[in-house]
């Protein structure tokens, strides 16, 4: 008798929990593939194709499918690889050999005197950051340019060049504090004194 009670109690428990889990599976079903979105959010959206995929989203999809390494994106840099490794639990690797060079943030500049208005760069720009029309001078809308360099190759007169973004007081960053550097080590320009002025 006792054994029957025990069995029925356990069976009832299993039934209740089982149906709760079953309900939850239907009620909280996850649509789409959130991993791709999360990976894509880490990628810098330069759309440069240096990872050999046609844009950041395709690369994100390839990573999610497990087909691509996480260290192929030079604009994302080391920081990006670290973030991806943390997100996916995959081992950190330094930037791949061929994508080793981490470049300074740059934007494309069109030498407007040489531009012949062929529109080829407009067709190459993945983010519509170039303004112009056939036979008209073209120009890059600098705040929109991701620095992907895709417009450089198509230009038949080689009038597009990458220019590093200048450092200004607005985008300047306080440096990492220097450890073990006593103030004595700091060098200073001589004080402007009246004597110095006379010289």
């Amino acid at each position, binding site marked *: 008798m006792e054994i029957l009670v025990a069995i029925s109690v356990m069976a009832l428990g299993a039934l209740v929990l089982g149906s709760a889990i079953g309900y939850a599976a239907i009620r909280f079903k996850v649509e789409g593939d959130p991993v791709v979105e999360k990976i*894509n959010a880490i*990628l*810098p*959206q*330069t*759309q440069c194709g240096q990872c050999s995929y046609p*844009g*950041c*989203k395709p690369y994100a999809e390839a990573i999610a499918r497990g087909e691509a390494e996480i260290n192929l994106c030079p604009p994302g840099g080391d920081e990006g690889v670290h973030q991806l490794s943390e997100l996916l639990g995959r081992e950190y690797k330094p930037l791949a050999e061929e994508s080793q060079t981490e470049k300074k943030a740059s934007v494309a500049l069109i030498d407007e005197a040489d531009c012949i208005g062929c529109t080829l760069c407009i067709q190459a720009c*993945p*983010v*519509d*950051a170039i303004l112009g029309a056939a036979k008209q001078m073209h120009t890059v809308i600098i705040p*929109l340019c*991701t620095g992907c360099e895709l417009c450089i190759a198509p230009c038949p007169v080689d009038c597009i060049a990458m220019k590093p973004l200048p*450092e*200004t*007081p607005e*985008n*300047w*960053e*306080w*440096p*990492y*504090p220097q*450890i*073990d*550097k*006593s*103030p*004595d080590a*700091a060098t*200073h*320009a*001589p*004080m*402007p*004194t*009246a*004597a*110095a*002025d006379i010289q």
Partner: protein
Amino acid sequence: MSKKKLFSFLGGIKLAHRKEYSSEKAIAPLPMPKKLILPLRQSAGSLPAPIVQVGEKVNKGQCLAAAEGWISASLHAPTSGTIRDIGDYPIAHPSGLVAPCIVIEADGEDAWGERQPLLEHADSERLDPETVQRYLQSMGVVGMGGAVFPSHVKLSKAPGVPLETLIVNGAECEPFITCDDRLMRERAAEIVSGIIFLAELLEAKESVVAIEDNKPEAAAAMRAALAARLEATANHIRVVVIPAVYPAGSLKQLIYTLTGKRAPAGVLPPQLGVQCFNTATVYAIWQAVARGEPVISRIVTVTGNVGRPGNLEVPLGASVADVLQYAEARPESDGCLVGGPMMGFLLPDYDAPIGKGANCLIARSPQFFPHKAPESPCIRCTNCAQACPQGLLPYEMYWWSRARDFAKAERHNLQECIECGCCSYVCPSSIPLVQYFRFAKDALRTAATKKEMADQARERFEFRQFRAEREKTERTQKLAQAAKQQSAKLAAENANAAPAEDLDETRKQALIAAAIERVAGERAKVGCDEGANATEAALAPNHGNSA
């Protein structure tokens, strides 16, 4: 005058005031330098746009650059002279980088242009706040306490919240600095007129001039000036002496001390029914509205290792070198601080000009700033947490900032840090905590901009793909449409031709020949690339019919 309870904020430190070097020196004008360099960036917000040309002659007080957008303030000529250049020059900034500036060569005449004080032709008693705001923006009035936030923006009240307390900040809590102290002692009447003007404009229930207890002369001067004005009592304006605990003059701490109100992150003072202006700002506002004088000079305390410490009225654009020379800075000084010793920065280039926010120059020497021991590991003594006026845990924030784990530093409320420097000051391990926080904050700011740009790039990329897709479907649709039209036309012709079946063979042949000719002609006209498919498609049924 009712005595109200003061609240004492958490943390804070007692500092040696070191104000005695310059506090007894009356404000003196700095002789006009020959060349003035005026950075366009003299306020928070967007840069004003230059409205003068190189070579143009300008009068003193003439507008050189006009405000662009709401959070922006205009810039004016501090003296008469000629515009020599508009270009990049080093500015007073810890980076030592260059920024766009307007260079004036003074002609020595210091001749004013036309001045139009707002109050002179304001006939109505009550001025409309918006008129005042536009006027102050055009006069380049910004916060002179160092934050350089455009003052006219702060005249907007939060909708539906009446202004309970207008605070005039004369605390001047950093050591060494005495420019506001001197201003209150010497020009109390103007400041009081400014307070009355603001209190009436903003309909403040009460106004409080907060002065630290180490400046009794300033408090006495302000009290006397208030007593001389009937409107002061009518508007409930009073002087409140607050304890000199650093950082008592910091906005959040001052509001708490006087009203007991705390502003959580993201809540602006007007939403709490409070607004706060620096004494020097109130003075600048009064100079503008009553005399039509824009902000073209400021009072700078020059102190530290100098032969002639004091308070100088410096035209904007005079170089730090000009001021240091005038004050006879001693050659063995090892650098110059701009701002106070707690929150100021070491100036990389002495040619940098004095701007609207530069309240103090301190020539540094080991006598005033004994060298600190090099940084050693944190011993978790929690001195920093006890000193922090914002109630933060600096050692935690430091730990994560040092490890460059900015997300964790942010979780410890890094963004709440006001960079007051109390924690660095008390740290027995000489850890430059504030330096780490500035570094981490900037890294977070850059990451946020990058993220914003990446999001924008993704949106634009996705839209471009969507557009390419749409154009493709539109093109196929158009082609299909053209094919359908063509075949319909031919079908109609064929239908016309059908009853002619009983006609003689020759006529039928002639019709077919004409049709072929027409189609050939059309094909040539449509051209090869787009039309080819369409014509072919159109031809097919025709061939079928005629066969």
